[in-house]
């Protein structure tokens, strides 16, 4: 039989050893983890303009992704009222944290990608709620600030085969290409995710069967999230 003091000593020594080893390992690898995370996010942003990249994203190494991102992407942070924020890097804006702030205080990341032919694409980040948890997307606009050039979606915990199709099924993000955010008179109307067939070719996309709540979330996220950028984009439009 073991005495109480032995038990306490045993547990303490064991926990201390484990804690020290894990702490060393965690801090030793933290640099690699941070780098991996940055590359992962860069890939997600570049996915929205994947048809305009010099070569397919899947075949690019991590170093190539970083180099491309550095060469071709200009980063900006803007606010709801259309002003630009200095001193913040768009890549480091944590959208999950921004979501908790009041709308007027949120930092909105904006990435401007220059394609091979010199044409700029404006990549906007949006975040909303799906069925189970958060969903988010990067939306690339052409330089008319109206036509969608590409999208990439991701989610935290949507149902595989249903809500998760926004990411897993390439046909869903592809539906957005060529759709318009503004109506003929230039008012912001966003994109509608509709059931039973697309009636308005300009602004509608088809819902995923069995994922109504996720798709409603996508529609709400786009309307709200893209709306935040309108003041800044209008400013760019009148300036350019």
């Amino acid at each position, binding site marked *: 039989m*073991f005495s109480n003091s032995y038990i306490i000593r*045993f547990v303490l020594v064991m926990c201390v050893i484990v804690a020290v*080893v894990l702490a060393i390992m965690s801090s030793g*690898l933290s640099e690699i*983890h941070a780098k991996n995370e940055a590359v992962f996010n860069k890939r997600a942003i570049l996915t929205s303009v994947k048809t305009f990249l010099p070569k397919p994203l899947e075949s690019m190494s991590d170093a190539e992704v970083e180099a491309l991102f550095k060469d071709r992407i200009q980063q900006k942070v803007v606010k709801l009222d259309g002003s630009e924020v200095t001193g913040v890097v768009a890549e480091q804006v944590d959208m999950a944290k921004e979501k908790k702030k009041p709308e007027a205080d949120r930092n909105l990341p904006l990435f401007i990608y220059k394609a091979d032919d010199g044409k700029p694409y404006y990549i906007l980040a949006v975040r909303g709620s799906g069925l189970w948890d958060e969903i988010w997307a990067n939306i690339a606009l052409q330089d008319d600030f109206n036509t969608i050039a590409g999208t990439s979606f991701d989610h935290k915990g949507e*149902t*595989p*085969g249903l809500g998760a199709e926004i990411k897993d099924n390439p046909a869903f993000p592809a539906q957005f290409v060529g759709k318009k955010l503004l109506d003929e008179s230039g008012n912001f109307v966003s994109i509608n995710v509709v059931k039973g067939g697309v009636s308005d070719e300009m602004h509608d996309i088809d819902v995923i069967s069995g994922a109504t709540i996720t798709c409603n979330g996508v529609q709400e996220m786009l309307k709200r999230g893209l709306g935040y950028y309108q003041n800044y984009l209008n400013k760019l439009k009148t300036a350019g």
Partner: protein
Amino acid sequence: MAEVKEPVKQEQESWWSKKERKLVIDPLLDNNPITVQVLGVCSALAVTTLTFKALIMAISVTLVTAFSNLFTSMLRNYIPFQVRMIAQLVIIAFLVTVVELTLKAAQYPMWKDLSVFIGLIITNCIVMGRLEAYAMANKPWKSFLDGIGNGLGYGAILIALGIVREIFGKGTLLAGSPFELKIIGPSADFLLNTQNAWLSWYAPNNLMVLPASALFLIGIIIWIQRSMQPKLIDVS
């Protein structure tokens, strides 16, 4: 006394006798943790949508079972009986964290994809079950082999499920890894192009993407295994 000592000595000298082989092979077939003991089913349903995901999970669990068995067995005479579960849990949690940190550094997208399921290896019934049932009462080398065997038995079922679910659900094999194969799908770079007239009836089976399909597949495997091995059938 001398008679008793003799066989013990022989056993220690042999590192890879029939007994050791049985430790590794038994959990693959007649004592499989998933199909016979029906442990670890929760993660088998969740992480088998893609073969590569199942493979990574299988490797992670095998490492955790093998080394937690080894460490527990080495410490088995020092672990106080009253707190043995806590001590085992510390060892398992330690190894799972090591695996998670390594995976996050080596395969970040896969780590992101597996998300909570790597952490949930801690609660995988197979790991704790082997510690309680085997490692607490056996020598380190044998416990290590027992851990390898049970990890592989779990992994074999996982990979089998992953292959079936990925081919029929997505039409690919090993997607996400550098060895991706495109088997069946609606474009020319797939092995079987469903745009061809004779295959145009084919559509991916959406059920295969859902966790329920893994349960059906495990059921089928159990059925086949038991009809081939009548001794596994529980008569009670």
